[in-house]
């Protein structure tokens, strides 16, 4: 079965992100597929390259990155949500004249149309709200 996951919450401020991460790991472990991870609103903070959690806490963005790399997942970050929160890839940083890109490896910045596409193409869509 093909799943799309929509993540609305920032890491650590609500169970949204960690629940989604656990669910995504379980989907793969169960032999199902993930069509797309879509990070929306505060969920874009999961894609932050600059987050430094305390050492005794789960590094949620790093765990996403590992999962995305190991399983070649499509992980899309909503452009409007991301840019206003300072999550920028190299081209966005350049465009807005910011000194650094902050988007973690493995994630892609794209439009809300990718969410509609994710809903259309998946067998099941799971929303992880705050």
């Amino acid at each position, binding site marked *: 079965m093909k799943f799309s996951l929509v993540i*609305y919450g920032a890491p650590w401020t609500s169970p949204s992100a960690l629940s989604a991460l656990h669910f995504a790991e379980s989907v793969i472990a169960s032999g199902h597929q993930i069509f797309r991870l879509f990070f*929306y*609103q*505060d969920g874009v903070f999961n894609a932050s390259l600059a987050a430094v959690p305390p050492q005794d806490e789960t590094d949620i963005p790093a765990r996403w990155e590992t999962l995305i790399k190991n399983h070649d997942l499509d992980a899309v970050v909503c452009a*409007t949500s991301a840019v206003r929160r300072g999550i920028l890839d190299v081209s966005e940083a350049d465009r807005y004249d910011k000194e650094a890109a902050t988007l973690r490896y493995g994630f892609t910045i794209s*439009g*809300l*149309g990718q*969410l*509609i*596409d994710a*809903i*259309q193409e998946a067998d099941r*869509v799971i*929303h992880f*709200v705050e």
Partner: protein
Amino acid sequence: MDNISYLLLVRSSPYGSARARAAIDIALTAAAFEQAVTVVFLDEGVLQLFDGQETDIAELKNISQMIPALPLYEVKALCVHLPSAEKFGLDVAGLAEITPLDDAGLTRLTREHDQVLVF
């Protein structure tokens, strides 16, 4: 892209979180992809439908002004949950292009649509 129907249940107040605005953005995007979109305002979501929202002083975008424009962007139907409207003292008779809905109607819409998104 296949045609599927979207039901957006908007339960959030207009300015207490970003969720109300997110619902509008998703409604517009799905409609732009020629999908059939119905938006229902219920619970605190009915607060978006009140006239006279003064948002300039709070430096916020006025969400209530975006709602009447949704049908122009091919959002198929706007509905308001009648028991919620009554609870918050909203007069539904004064709402143009917004269909009142009772509990049974809400249940029916939920069954009829392919995707139900809650905001």
